[in-house]
């Protein structure tokens, strides 16, 4: 039975789309048929991060309104087998996104895939609510920063009250992915630790993605950062997905790297 997973955060710019691209890619690398749906109608970006922006013909709204078949709108990833994405519409009004329409699309995808990953837009408007409504599981992305954590808490409240599972008296299991983590600043008490954030939000930690130049490089090139196995961020996403699949892996990159004198002087940051 396919699982529907929402990647959400409340606040914008914390790394939902980046995380979505890497998590989906890693799941497909593990052999699971995976589809990513971009719910950010009007501001689509998942196609850019996945590097398939030039192959977008039809989008989610076209499928919902019956102008295109699902099979016509799905874009197959060029790098990994069994990975597909369904882009958001760039031009349409987001009122075209209906609950019935989204349900139909998700049900159809569930028949053909192991994982349906919903990339939520920022905020708590229609697109975000529909991205989470049909979820069986949630990944809450948060930066160790006050406004991001507060918004994440709000979103966790919505997962517990405004989803199909909540309406059936259950709650959507949510796990925390802390991104843009800087262990050196944490050690200097300039940044909240992952433990602080997890305690405040009271959900289990799925992973910690360190602040890394490789993330920008990856999105510049349209290659999910998880493909870069030289980069700590890429390794951290693989770890997070292994944990997502039930494996027990220790957290990496949460303590500062011990640098030698020379790299301290001349900088050796990746």
């Amino acid at each position, binding site marked *: 039975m396919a699982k529907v997973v929402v990647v959400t955060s409340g606040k914008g710019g914390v790394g939902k789309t980046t995380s979505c691209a890497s998590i989906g890619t890693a799941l497909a690398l593990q052999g699971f048929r995976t589809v990513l749906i971009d719910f950010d109608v009007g501001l689509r970006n998942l196609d850019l991060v996945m590097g398939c922006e030039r192959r977008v013909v039809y989008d989610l709204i076209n499928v919902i309104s019956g102008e295109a078949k699902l099979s016509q709108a799905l874009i197959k990833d060029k790098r990994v087998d069994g990975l597909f994405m369904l882009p958001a519409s760039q031009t349409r009004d987001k009122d075209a996104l209906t609950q019935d329409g989204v349900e139909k699309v998700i049900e159809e995808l569930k028949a053909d895939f192991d994982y349906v990953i919903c990339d939520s837009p920022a905020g708590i408007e229609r697109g975000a609510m529909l991205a989470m409504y049909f979820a069986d599981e949630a990944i809450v992305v948060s930066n160790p920063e*006050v406004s991001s*954590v507060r918004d994440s*808490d709000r979103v966790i*409240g919505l997962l517990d009250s405004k989803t199909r599972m909540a309406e059936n008296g259950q709650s959507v299991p949510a796990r925390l992915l802390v991104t843009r983590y800087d262990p050196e600043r944490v050690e*200097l*008490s*300039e*940044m909240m630790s992952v433990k*602080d954030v997890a305690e*405040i939000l009271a959900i289990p930690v799925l992973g910690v993605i360190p602040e890394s130049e490789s993330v920008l490089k990856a999105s510049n090139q349209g290659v999910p950062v998880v493909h870069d196995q030289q980069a700590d961020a890429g390794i951290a996403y693989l770890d997070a997905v292994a944990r997502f699949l039930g494996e027990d892996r220790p957290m990496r990159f949460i303590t500062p790297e011990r640098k030698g004198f020379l790299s301290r002087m001349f900088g050796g940051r990746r």
Partner: protein
Amino acid sequence: MKRLRSLFQRDNAASADVARERLMVMISQDRLQRNQPDFLPRLQKELIEVILRYTKSSQEDIQISYHSLPQQAQLELNVTWPSRS
């Protein structure tokens, strides 16, 4: 080491702790409000108006708190005013 650094970096020292404290206060308030009915602020305002009309209380003498219990919701109202001597 940490302590030594904080001697020289007073300004930055422990700003993460400040963040954590502020968040904990903010989020516990948010969580309380999340479960409150939408009409509560209006109800509170109107209750205060009525009470002020009849008593010589000041606004601070009126305390209204909302409790959400498993089976029912509860509104607690505490009003004090100077008794006539």
